[in-house]
C-alpha cells in the first residue's frame, strides 16, 4: 500500500515535470515581441517588392500560420500543440529540410544519444564509485591516496578542455580514433556494431572521465564518513570480515546519496552530451539541436527540446523508482 502511494506520488511528479516543461517550451517563444510570420512576410515583401498581390500575401500568411501552428487564439494554439506534440508526437515538418517531418530526424538521432549517454553514465558511475569506495574505505593506505589523486586531478578540468585534449591526442596525433563520427546507414550487422563502438569510443571516454572525478571524490567522502557510523564500528566488533563490511555495510549505505546525486545530475550530464556531440560531430540529439538553432528551424528546435525534457525526466523518474529497492526506509514516507 505504501509502495503504491510512493509510486503514485512519483508518477504525479513525473507528469507534472513533463507538463511544465512542455508548457514553457510553448510559451517562451510566444513571449517574444516579434511575430515570426509577420517578420517573414515583411522580408518577402522587401525582396519581391510589389510583385505579390495582397490576396496572395494573405493566402501565404494563412498557410504559414497553419504550418507553424499559429492559428486561432493562444488557448486554441496551446491545446492544438499539446494534442499534436504530446499525443501524436508530431512536430510538423522540418523547415530547413522541408517536407521531411521533424519526428523522423529525432527518431534517427535519439538512439545515438541514449546509447552514448546510457553507457557512459553507467560506466562512470560504477567505476567512479568503486574507486571512491576503495579510496574511502582504505583511507590511510598510500594506494587509496593515489586513487583519490585521480579524482582530484580529473574533477576540476572543464569538460571541453578534457574533450579537446583527448581529441588532439588520440584522434589527431596518434590517430587511434576517428576525428568525427562517420557511419553509413544500413542494417545492423556485426561490422556496423563494431564501427559504432569504434566511433563512439572517444566521445564516451570523455564523458566517462568527466563524470569520474566527481564520483570518486564524493564516494570517497561518503565511504569515509560511513565507516565511522556506529553500525559499521559494531560490525567490525562483531568480527564481520572487512570485505563484507565494505560491501554490505559501507557501500550499501554510502551509495544512497550517490543514487540521488545521479538522478539530480542527469540534466547536467545531458547538457554535457550536447557539447560532446558537437565536438565529435556525433549524430545525436545534441548535434540535431545545434543544426536546428543554426538554421532557424523552429519545428526541429521544439522537437529536440521536448524530447530532451522527456528523456531527462524519464531517467530521473526511473532512478526514483529504483530507490526504494535499495533503501527500505523510503517506503515509510
Amino acid at each position: 500500500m505504501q509502495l503504491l502511494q510512493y509510486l503514485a506520488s512519483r508518477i504525479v511528479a513525473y507528469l507534472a515535470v513533463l507538463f511544465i516543461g512542455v508548457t514553457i517550451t510553448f510559451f517562451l517563444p510566444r513571449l517574444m515581441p516579434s511575430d515570426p510570420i509577420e517578420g517573414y512576410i515583411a522580408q518577402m515583401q522587401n525582396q519581391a517588392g510589389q510583385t505579390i498581390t495582397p490576396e496572395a500575401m494573405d493566402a501565404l500568411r494563412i498557410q504559414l500560420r497553419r504550418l507553424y501552428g499559429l492559428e486561432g487564439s493562444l488557448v486554441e494554439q496551446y491545446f492544438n500543440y499539446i494534442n499534436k506534440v504530446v499525443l501524436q508526437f508530431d512536430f510538423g515538418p522540418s523547415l530547413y529540410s522541408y517536407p521531411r517531418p521533424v519526428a523522423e530526424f529525432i527518431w534517427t538521432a535519439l538512439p545515438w544519444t541514449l546509447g552514448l549517454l546510457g553507457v557512459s553514465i553507467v560506466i562512470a558511475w560504477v567505476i567512479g564509485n568503486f574507486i571512491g569506495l576503495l579510496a574511502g574505505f582504505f583511507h590511510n593506505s598510500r594506494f587509496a591516496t593515489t586513487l583519490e589523486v585521480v579524482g582530484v586531478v580529473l574533477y576540476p578540468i572543464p569538460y571541453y578542455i578534457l574533450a579537446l585534449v583527448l581529441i588532439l591526442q588520440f584522434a589527431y596525433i596518434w590517430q587511434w580514433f576517428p576525428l568525427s563520427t562517420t557511419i553509413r546507414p544500413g542494417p545492423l550487422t556485426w561490422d556496423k556494431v563494431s564501427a559504432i563502438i569504434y566511433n563512439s569510443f572517444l566521445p564516451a571516454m570523455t564523458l566517462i572521465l568527466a563524470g569520474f572525478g566527481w564520483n570518486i571524490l564524493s564516494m570517497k567522502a561518503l565511504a569515509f564518513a560511513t565507516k565511522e557510523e556506529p553500525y559499521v564500528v559494531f560490525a567490525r566488533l562483531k568480527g564481520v570480515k572487512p570485505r563484507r563490511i565494505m560491501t554490505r555495510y559501507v557501500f550499501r549505505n554510502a551509495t544512497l546519496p550517490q543514487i540521488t546525486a545521479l538522478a539530480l545530475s542527469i540534466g547536467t550530464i545531458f547538457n554535457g552530451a550536447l557539447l560532446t556531440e558537437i565536438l565529435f560531430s556525433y549524430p545525436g540529439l545534441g548535434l540535431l539541436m545545434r543544426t536546428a538553432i543554426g538554421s532557424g528551424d523552429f519545428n526541429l528546435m521544439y522537437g529536440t527540446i521536448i524530447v530532451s525534457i522527456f528523456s531527462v525526466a524519464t531517467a530521473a523518474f526511473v532512478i526514483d523508482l529504483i530507490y526504494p529497492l535499495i533503501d527500505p526506509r523510503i517506503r515509510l514516507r
Partner: protein
Amino acid sequence: MISLNELVATYTTVRGSVRAVDGVDLSIPEGNIVGIAGESGCGKTTLLKVIYGDLTYPLALEQGSVNYGFADGAGREVDSASIQAYWFQRISYIPQSSMSSLNPVIRIRKQFVDFLEPKANKDDTLDRVRQFIQQLDLPPEALDAYPHQLSGGMRQRMMVALATFFQPDIILADEPTTALDVVVQKGILLLLLKLQRQMGNTILFVSHDMGVHYQISHRMIIMYAAKVVEYGESPDVFSAPLHPYTRMLIESLPNIGDDHLRQGVSGRPPSLWDDLRGCRFAARCPLATELCRQEEPPLVEHRPNHFAACHYAGDVIPTLELPA
C-alpha cells in the same frame, strides 16, 4: 577469572601519546556483574575496549596484558592479542550507541549471522535465534524486519539478544541503556540480569548512573583520571566506601523523602596531559594532605576483597567526616 595485569593503554594524538588507562591491575571472578563508574573521560570506555581486544589505531596497549581465563585450541592462554577470534562467541559487546548500531538497509536476520564463518549453518542458527528471541519478549518476525521498523526498546533487546545468543563467557556493555527512557531501561536491565543468571556470564557494565549500579552490580570498579581508585563488592562499596571520591559520588545520589540540597563533587578531573604527581584526586579532595599531593597512593586491599587507592583508606577515613 579475568585478570587485568598492569594495563597501560595509550591514544596516539598529534600532541603525542596520552595514557587513557594507566596501570589497572585487578582480577574479576567469573559470573559477576561488575559495574564501572566514573566521570566522562576517566577511561571507562577505553578500559572496555582494551578488555575486548579492540586495539586499533589510535588506541594501543602499551604494557600489561589481559587473561580471559580460557585457553585456545592449542592450549595457550587467550590474551588481548588473540581474543579477536572469539568475538561474539566467547566475548561480546553491547555498544554505547546501540540505537544506531544496526545497519539500516539490511534485514536484522542477516546482521545476526553475517559474522559467522561460511561453514556454520546459517539457517539452522537462525531457527535457534528465532526460538531464543522469544525469551526476550521479541516476536520471531522481528528478525525479518529492518531496524527502523522496530521501536527503540525492541532494537535494544535485539542488541542484547545478539550479545547473549552464543552464550559468551564475558559480556561488555558500554552504557547500554543511556539512550532509553527509564521504563524501557528497567526492562532491559532486568532482562540482562535474567539472562546473566541463566547463563552465568561475567558482565562488565559501564554506566554514569550510580543508581543503576546499585541495582544490578555485584562488584564495583570506580575510575578516576585513568586509574582505578576503588574496587570491591557492591554492598561494601555502597555502604562503606573507602575512597573519598566514591564517597562523594554516592553522597550525590538522591533519596526519596530527603529534600536537602545534594552536594556534588566540585571541580574537574585533571587533564591527562599535565604532569600528574601524587594522588590524582588531591586537588578536589576535601581531606587531601601534603602526602596526597606528593605521593601516589597504590591500590591496596584494605579489607577482604575491597581495594582502594587512598593513603587514608582503611582506619583513618571512616572516622573523618566529610565537610557538609
